[in-house]
Structures are given as C-alpha cells and as structure tokens.
C-alpha cells in the first residue's frame, strides 16, 4: 500500500469522522470509530470517488471494511486506470 494514498485517505477520514489524523490507523473501522456510521460510509465513498476520480462498485464498497483495506482498494483502482 502506498504511503501517499494512505495519507490522503487518512486526511479525508479525519475530516469526515472528526477524529485527529494521528488516531486513524490502517485498522480503523466502523467498529473503532464512533462517527463511522452508514451515512459517513456513504460520504467516504463519495469523497473517494471525487478525490481519486474513480467509480466504486457495490462489491468494492463492501471491501471498505477499514482504512487500510480502503487504501489498498483505491490504490488498485488507480493502478488499473490508465492515466
């Protein structure tokens, strides 16, 4: 997982969930972050799609079980997308 993508997602999650960046790790998930409910999950999906110019399928949305998995997913989408 690239540090650059992870850092960008961590910043995004920090803004969305109202949690300091240093508290957000690869393992941060809806179970560990109080503000990560279904609405914030949607907001995270929409923010990722806008920031990285990607479209997330239902299967990919399900893979976003924590920040680390989300970063891996976005990275693989970026690698698959011709730039």
């Amino acid at each position, binding site marked *: 997982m690239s540090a650059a993508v992870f850092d960008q997602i961590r910043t995004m999650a920090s803004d969305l969930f109202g949690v300091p960046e240093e508290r957000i790790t690869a393992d941060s*998930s*809806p*179970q560990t972050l109080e503000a*990560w*409910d*279904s*609405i*914030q*999950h*949607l*907001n995270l*999906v*929409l923010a990722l799609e806008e920031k990285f110019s990607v479209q997330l399928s*239902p*299967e990919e*949305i*399900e893979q*976003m*079980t924590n920040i680390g998995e989300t970063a891996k997913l976005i990275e693989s989408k970026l690698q698959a997308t011709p730039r």
Partner: protein
Amino acid sequence: MAISIQPYRQEHEPAVEQFNRRLQRSSGDPDLVFSKTAIPRWLAPANHNPVWNEFFVALEGSTVRGAYGLKQEMVFVRGKGMQRVACYHHPLSEGIVDRSYASVGVLLARDALARQPFLYALGMGGYERPLPKMLKALGFSLTPIPFYFRVAHTATFLREMEALRQARWRALLMDVAAATGTGWLAIKSAQAVARLRGRPMNFVAEEVAEFSEWADDLWNQAKDSVSLAAVRDANTLRILYPPRVTNLRRLRVSRNSAAIGWAIVGERRKDPKFGKMRVGSIVDCWASPENAAAVVQAASQVLEKADVDLIVSNQSHQVWCRGLESAGFLKGPSTFLFAASRKLTELLQPLEQNRPSFHLTRADGDGLPANF
C-alpha cells in the same frame, strides 16, 4: 462475504424474520421491521396495474442484512408528459445495529437508483434523520411539504397537548401564540380569522363507493395546473382506494350535479404523539385550482361531522395551501419531506419555478397503510 441484492422471494421470509428480530432486539425499536411477506400486502404486483410495490433484500449468503421497497408508479410532469418513477421506502440495514454492515445502507440506495434512476422518497421525519441525510449526500433535492392543522375541539386539543408536552406541537403553539400575540387560546380565534378570509361556497359532498369516469374527467381537466403529480385517474384511484378499504372515505364534491373535485378523508391511527385525540386527515384531493377551496371545505366539514378533535393535512401545491388557509387551517412546521433523485430533479427543472405547483399529499409515497 459478498452482499447480493435480490428481489424478495418467499424463500427469504424466515431470514427476514430473523433480520427483524436482530434489529428489534439490538435497537429496542419495535418499528424497525421489514415486511414479513415477500408479496406486498399493499399494492401487490398484478397484471396491468399501473401502480405496485416490490421488495428487495440484501443477502449475505442466506442471511438478510438489509431490505427496501419500491413503489412503482406513473407521474405526470407538466411539459414532459407521463413518466414512470419509484418511491424508495422502508430501507433497513443491519448497519443500524452492527457497524460491520455500515456499507449496506449505501448499497441499498445505490441499488434502488440503478433499478429506477427517477427515484423519490417522501416523509422521512425531518432533515436530521439518517435517510434524508443519506439521500442528500447522494445528490437528491429535498423539499418540505407544508403541514396544516385545524383544531375542531379546542379544549380537548389543549388538554392533550399540555399532557403530552410534545416538543413539536409546543413549538407550533408557541408560533401561533407569537403570531397572534394572545397566547395559546388564540388558536380558535386565529382559525376564525383565517376562515373569514374564505367565502361560503356552493357545493355538495357525497360519499362514493368507488371512483368512476367522472374522476377521469377531473384528472384530465386539472392535470395541467400541476407541475408534478402521481397519476390520479379513475383506474389508479380504484387501486389505491378500493371499495374494500373502509377506513378511508371517498368524497365526490359537486356543484349543480357536476363533479368539481374529490377528496379522501380518514381518521389517523392512534399515535402516542396525539394522545387520546381523534385526528382526522385530508389525505388526498384533486380539483381544478378554482375548486380546490371548495373541496377543502367539503372534506373539513365531513371530518368535523365525524367528531374528530383535530384535522391535519400535508399539501405541496400553493392552490391547495391557500384553500386550507381559507378554510381556517393554520400552518405548522413540517417534517414531511420530498426527496427527488438527481435524474428526477433534472426532469422537474426549472425546480424553483415548478416546486410551488407540485401536487404531493399524504397519499403519495408509502404512507397510506402505515397511517390509516
């Protein structure tokens, strides 16, 4: 395991029952239940019916993790003609009680949009509730549908409201008090003043068993006065308000024997927020603009004769709002919202110009069986 969203079939019923139990047990909310039956009790799909309900379940293996309903119907959009749309209703997700399923709510909403891009939701209980927040994030436009009330029995109303101490109603009464400057007991006089602005009208209201051709004539005569309305021709009305439905009364309003409009009135189910009060509702109505006030008066009179304590109505069209005001109704804060998907919003452009003539009532959406 992957989530797959499929039409709700009979074989899913036991899993839906378990899903309901998990939601109720963990949330303590008895209202968090999805339909126990795969075939909708209200508006089950049938050959050639223009309006029907269909349900979908989100499955993880054989376990249900979410569900939602679509009410498929035809609407008239001025300048664009007829359009099939769907009402997104009763979305329920395991994410409400288990954060591992936080993604299910998004999957349900996106699945509904993929099935019907011209999607709307109605009601929802106010801007701060989760569903309107989610729909707003998905680009839906949100519009409150004005709420009106008229107190028929002031003493009962004040006693019940005082006993209930309902924040929403107290706020509403405070608004009335502020507007009149004379306190809560000014309700009756405020209504009387409002009613004086109206004028006595010549009409006859009769209860009918079902809608027939005269309703088609009214639909055709009046539909160009609205920018958006669910189809209310005789065929659709017979499906929505069949003769076997006895808790809703079908009123034909006429002048000199010619039909000028119709209304559906009924008594709302007992609801803790209304205490012991009997609450009548002008559920649905239709007429040309010049006859809207007469239909409101007719419907109100029928409900008053039925001895209700309070009459309520949600109406979005400015003509019907004026009709309610001229019949002595007061406007209260509304938590009844209309949310239109991006595609539907595009169809309704120019939105600011068209919004005041949307014809949306309590009969739209999915509220009929739940509230009456």
